[in-house]
């Protein structure tokens, strides 16, 4: 076993020393720089969202709600591109549930339509409605939620009763508080929460406006502090960065693992194909805001960024450097050309979904039973993601890194294993 691994290294060394102009360490640097920039951008746009939320809660108006919604959508653009860092970096994967959990049983947080139903087999607290309920019993414990704080959301409510769908924090909880349920099914339209849900005194609709404002404020504050934590992990001495630097081969595998797991199991499967098979608008990733097309697009973009070693920041500047693409091109130019082209095709397919949705053919309409045009649009992107995954595997093989699997760990399908 060890011998085999050593043999592989020896072979690489023979060709690598003179031929590899690109060093793995440089490629890892670029990757970590892009991650840092991505989380910094996520943080700055989340702070802008926080400011907009403050205005909404302090001086509620239709305009203030609209401004907060625009700030939320802007905050999603950099964050979705960081999803490519999730799988393969345990430090990100262990954390991301706090900020991007989905799908959620939103009745945990606030009022819902009667058609939503109540508690389910899977979730006894699906309709708890914390905003309307200052004191309640959770898994046998009395909870005092008179004050809605980031601490309450993080430690008591999030994943309450160990149920994943009890999403109390992060982008989608905030999204629900800004838009409300989308009751249009597979017809056009997003959630239509009125701004008066945050109004004071007699103008308040649906009750408990002060508690709703407190929840939104606390959830946004928590998002900001969670993103501060993650940006720090990618700074010069941050743990995410130093982990990758400590073992370069494992670092490169982590990059490719993140690309492949997001492309195939997560995006093509869980997020796109499943929604299509269920014809269910609740299976949209950003179902309250009808922003799913953008989420999908920037997820794909994040994968492409990692491979090409370049990221366009929210201020328009670019972070780039020696890339995986450069590394693969030196090992096997055909694999690099193929993968680069496939990533581009996927982006064209995701771009077509985005453009159709922006043009009025919303993502939830595409999911409707028997909607052939929508199905074709989504299926094309799913096919593109599956196709590029095969070439990501080819890149792993071209770099000789599938041998890491033979060196005693579980191989690619258990990304954590390479770090254990």
């Amino acid at each position, binding site marked *: *076993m*060890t*011998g*085999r691994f*050593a*043999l592989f290294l020896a072979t690489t060394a023979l060709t690598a020393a003179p031929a590899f102009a690109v060093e793995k360490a440089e490629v890892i640097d670029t990757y970590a720089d892009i991650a840092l920039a991505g989380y910094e951008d996520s943080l700055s746009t989340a702070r802008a969202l926080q400011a907009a939320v403050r205005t909404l809660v302090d001086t509620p108006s239709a305009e203030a709600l609209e401004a907060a919604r625009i700030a939320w959508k802007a905050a999603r653009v950099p964050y979705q591109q960081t999803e490519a860092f999730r*799988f393969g970096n345990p430090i990100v994967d262990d954390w991301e549930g706090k900020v991007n959990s989905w*799908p959620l*049983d939103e009745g945990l947080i606030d009022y819902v339509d009667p058609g939503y*139903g109540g508690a*389910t*087999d*899977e979730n006894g607290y699906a309709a708890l409605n914390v905003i309307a309920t200052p004191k309640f019993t959770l898994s046998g414990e009395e909870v005092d939620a008179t004050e809605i704080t980031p601490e309450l959301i993080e430690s008591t409510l999030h994943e309450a*009763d*160990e149920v*994943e*769908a009890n999403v109390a924090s992060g982008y989608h909880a905030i999204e629900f508080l800004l838009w409300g349920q989308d009751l249009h099914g597979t017809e056009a339209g997003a959630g239509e929460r009125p701004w008066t849900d945050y109004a004071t005194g007699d103008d308040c609709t649906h009750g408990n406006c002060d508690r709703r404002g407190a929840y939104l404020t606390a959830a946004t504050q928590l998002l900001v502090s969670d993103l501060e934590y993650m940006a720090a992990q990618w700074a010069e001495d941050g743990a995410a960065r130093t982990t990758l630097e400590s073992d370069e081969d494992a670092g490169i595998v982590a990059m490719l693992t993140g690309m*492949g*797991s*997001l*492309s*195939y*199991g*997560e*995006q093509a*499967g*869980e*997020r796109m*194909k*499943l929604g299509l*098979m*269920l*014809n*269910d608008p*609740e299976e949209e990733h950003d179902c309250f805001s009808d922003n799913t097309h953008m989420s999908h697009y920037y997820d794909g973009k994040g994968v492409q960024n990692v491979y090409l070693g370049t990221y366009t920041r929210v201020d328009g500047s670019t972070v780039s450097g020696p890339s995986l693409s450069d590394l693969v091109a030196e090992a096997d130019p055909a694999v690099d050309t193929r993968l680069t082209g496939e990533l581009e095709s996927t982006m064209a397919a995701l771009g077509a979904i985005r453009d159709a949705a922006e043009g009025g053919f919303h993502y939830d309409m595409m999911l409707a*039973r*028997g909607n052939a045009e929508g199905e074709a649009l989504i299926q094309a992107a799913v096919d593109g993601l*599956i196709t590029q*995954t*095969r070439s*990501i*595997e*080819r890149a*792993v*093989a071209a770099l000789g890194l*599938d*041998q890491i*699997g*033979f060196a005693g760990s*579980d*191989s*690619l*399908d*258990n*990304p954590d294993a390479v770090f254990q």
Partner: protein
Amino acid sequence: MIRTLALALTLAGPVAAAVPEVVNEHAMPGFQAFSRATSALADAAAADCTPAALDDSYNAAFDAWLGVAHLQLGPTEAVTHSIAFWPDKRGFVGKTLAGMIADQDPVADDVGGYAEVSAAARGFFALEAMLFDPAFDGYETGSYSCRLVQTIAADLARTATRLETGWAGGFADTLLSAGADNNPVYLSKDEALRALYTQLMAGLEFNAETRLGRPLGTFERPRPTRAEAWRSGRPLRNVELSLKALHGLARTLANGPTPETDAAFAAAADVTANIEDPTFQTIEDPQERLHVEILQQRIQAIRAAVSDEIGDPLGVAAGFNSGDGD
């Protein structure tokens, strides 16, 4: 090192031979059996739609599915949710069926159009709800629910036939012609081998992490009703049949003696006898929980044996699989 290299050299020949054998001796007979069993179920439902009459044919068809369910490739990838939509984390099966029954959705009388409905109302888990869930199983011959059951069964049989043709008429060749100039999917024979090896490793992982892991939950909070097909009493049976099929795949793929792997599969089979309730509904009991956890560990040990004895000498590692997401 010497041992590993020697093995690799010895098995260098059979590597290329393993892919055709998996296709012809493992996959194709499995898809044929699945197609036959689902046709028998559809015929039985057409003759008598009531739950008691369909118990045997439902179970036989589900058994047949486990012979091929791990082959998540090509035509299977497109239809797997409509055959077996599980896990159902948000209760879509019950919700969707209840909605169709309440609306008397006319699609229940349209086998051809049924392929368009939500995967939650199709396949084994929709049938399981109709046949075994007290919320649905009280229907009578001639009722809307009766026709719905007949249509779900007929639709499943059609899906199985399409799957069989999809493999026989195209995808089998895609695997067999790996590396040929006109093959856009597998650019070399090794890629086809890797694809099949990935199914083996992912199938083992699915049994350990999902089929057993979901009902196990945590020690403080076990989740019996998250077991797969618990209403029809199949949780342990599904694991046993899946392991049997995966063992078949491992042996065929290795195309040579695999004593370590055989022993690991046998060790897993041995401990299933200790599990008293095959439906996992008493998993809250610490002793019962322990037995299920031991089975889970034995399955992880199979992965290690397969990796050592098959993956390593064949020079192949598992690629990405559809369970890599959340």
